[in-house]
């Protein structure tokens, strides 16, 4: 066990955990930030995506010991009240079916648009390919990303 001082959604947080603990479980079990979801645990599905700085990361394989003082953003911290352009576009297109993967999709899409404000179809597909949606809402996700880019 070791103490880590983390910067999450603009707030200082302290946890006392095994240094190997992935950020996913630090967020979910220790900080009660459950918007970041568990699905595969091996960085294959993107459901657990968070931002480390401005970069999308799979939190299920990111040990807390590697985070240091880098700013972490989770779905709960993406906007004050759900009004990030990507969140608004998701609601406009009514993207979710079961909705479980969507926080990861949104976090990845938000990071994509930060790096590339106006991505083409192929760029969206390449950037989003790591995020599985078992309900297969891919067509709507792409439409929502385009709306967010133009919004």
């Amino acid at each position, binding site marked *: 066990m070791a103490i880590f001082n983390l910067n999450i959604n603009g707030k200082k947080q302290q946890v006392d955990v095994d240094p190997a603990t992935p950020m996913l479980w630090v967020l979910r079990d220790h900080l009660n930030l459950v918007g*970041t979801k568990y699905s595969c645990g091996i960085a294959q599905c993107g459901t657990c995506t968070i931002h480390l700085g401005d970069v999308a990361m799979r939190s299920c394989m990111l040990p807390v010991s590697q985070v240091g003082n880098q700013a972490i953003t989770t779905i709960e911290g993406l906007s004050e*009240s759900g009004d990030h352009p990507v969140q608004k576009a998701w609601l406009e297109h009514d993207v979710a079916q079961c909705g479980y*993967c969507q926080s990861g999709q949104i976090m990845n899409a938000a990071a994509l648009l930060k790096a590339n404000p106006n991505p083409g179809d192929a760029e969206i597909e390449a950037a989003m390919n790591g995020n599985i949606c078992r309900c*297969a809402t891919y067509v709507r996700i792409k439409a929502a990303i385009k709306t967010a880019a133009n919004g």
Partner: protein
Amino acid sequence: MSLIKTHFGRRSFIKTTALAGGGMVLGISWLAACKSGTKEEMLAMPKEWFNINGFLKIGENGVVTIMSPNPEIGQNVKTSMPMLVAEELDVDWKMVIVEQAPLNTDIFQRQLAGGSQSIREAWKPLRMAGATARHMLKEAAAQAWQVPVDEVTTEAGVLKHEKSGKSAGYGELASAAAKVAVPKEVKLKDPKDFKIIGQSKKNVDGLKIVTGQPLYGLDYRRDGMLIAMIAHPPTFGMKLKSVDDSAAKAMPGIKDVFTINVYNEGYEKQWCDTEAFNEKVVVVGNTTWEVMQAKKALKLEWEPFTAFSENVQGWGGPQKVTVPAGLENTNDHQSKMADLTAKPANLLRKDGDPEAAFKRAAKVVERTYSAPFLAHNTMEPMNFFAHVTADKAELVGPIQTPEFMEKTVAARLGLPLEKVDIQMTRQGGGFGRRLYGHFLVEAAVISQKMNTPVKLVYTREDDMTAGVYRPAYHVTYRAGLDAEGNLIAFHIRGGGTSDSPVHANRFPAGAVDNYLAEEWRLDTNISTGAWRAPGSNFIAGAEQSFLDEVAEAAGKDPIEFRLALFDKAMKSPVGKDNDYDAARYAGVLKEVKEKSGWANPPANVHRGVSAYYCHDSYVAQVLDIVVVDGKTVIQKIHCAVDCGIVVNPIAATNLVEGGMVDGIGHALYSAMTFKDGTPEQSNFDKYRLIRHSEAPKAIDVHFVQNGIDPTGLGEPLNPPIIGALANALYKATGKRVYRQPFLGEKAMLG
């Protein structure tokens, strides 16, 4: 307008007052407490709620809470079912809050997610609940104003009496309405008067989903709750031999390690109690990560079991089911299924003289199709919360069959039914997997043993290797054509492990004079169950691929070939019990023919068509493939659907789109295979699901407009698209595909 009898359970009218702030007669909902800019937060909450009936309550300020009775697995019932209540209540949707109802068979009927039946079965009961409440409000107004009730009208939550000019909001009269006698009959609206049904209403959980609020079973927590995980045999055909838990028990945060039996010896299983591994090892600890690590430190030995039988209360009554011993292999399954399909099997239906017709046929086409086991792979793995005390079991989590599992849990714990309380969270996918609630039982047994609240969590690997798979299937079709290319004989023989996909009375039965259907089953100890569109998810694609090939052999356009068969089925149907309406079937095909511009396809587009009827809805699809840099790309799908009245178009369209992409993905990429009983896939590195770049570039959805009572959309879309895909791939590449996953035959899609 139709008059229907009302029916309510004994607990529907328990008085509710002064319960503002989330409390209510149906139990305090943890989910309702999750607020973030949602309607609950933005609307001023009433000081007092008046329970009109168990389906809805009205606050003194006119805010209405409607209970959504069924499990929400992504099929949007949490939004669309309350729309049915709100329509007949005649309330402004903006004033409606939706809450997930807990399991309560006194009030609600069929709290089950399965078979695409939620909307179909709820169509009248939920409208009845809304219409009853509206009637009671009108009675209350009539009494207050001393006017005849027939002169009271409603509009968007306001009661009016035109002659006297009086009016009042529902909230003002809710208290009085709650005391009005329940009518024996109520009038339902004429569909032409619908104001909410047929309008797109967005997901009531939408904002919670995009802001990451707790909604799902895995998000649930309770003070003092421990985390539990299980280890089941890694191999079908094996059971636990020994446990060395010394290292695991000594690890940080670990509270206990022990074994459990999911079901007691001699227990007669319900259909939803399917489970391949009865004895499991349990690790309980403080946090998920600690328990995961301890689980890896277990030293477990497994040994083959001998064949055994168990009692199962199936749909057809009690049965003794024998589970064979042995460590099975995919190659053996395939060769055994090929052998079974090559010889006569159990006769299901025979019309005319098929063999004589085949003998005189000018041309006979025979083709064989197969598909592998599939895992459900809900993105949220199996999990459940349980808190079992000496006299009560409280269970919270994702389950498609709460009504059935309540009985199983009560039997397993030795508690009366009324002492088992099940609350449903939003579910991160279902697809049939959460029909089988052994994980709920496991959570309850673990909590009972630990005497503490527990959340059971499956890892992805536990989930994917636990069984209850879509069976592997194998089917051979034969078609006989006369010299003019007319279909004069049709033969289907098929089966699976250990379920048969043959539906003897489905099309083209009834459209062919000489018809033969046979089935067989191959026993296995790999557990199988319902997987999105069970029984149809393979056979529709096989049939529609085959008909495409037969139409080609007949020298006919594939749509015209099918339409001629539907015409025959309408005008001079063959045999009895034909399980489809040929006019509606032809209707969707004609719709997609027109909307896709079938007669004049765009240049360089390779098209495949399919049409199918299952789970009470009719679907036809045209799939367009283009070849870009030598790679095949799905450019567009045109889809026509006849599911009767469309309740919520934006969500219905979403289900149609997703169902088709799901079907394409599984047909192209997905398979569970076995080596000596061990699944060769246990996570998404080896089990491939369709991804963004592989999805169709565009989808056009057209609903046939009619006034028929609605049917479901969760399942009818994925089966036929596999046929449209195979037929389009043939046009694009010149090669037919017969064995799923198609990508396993040859890399065909870019």
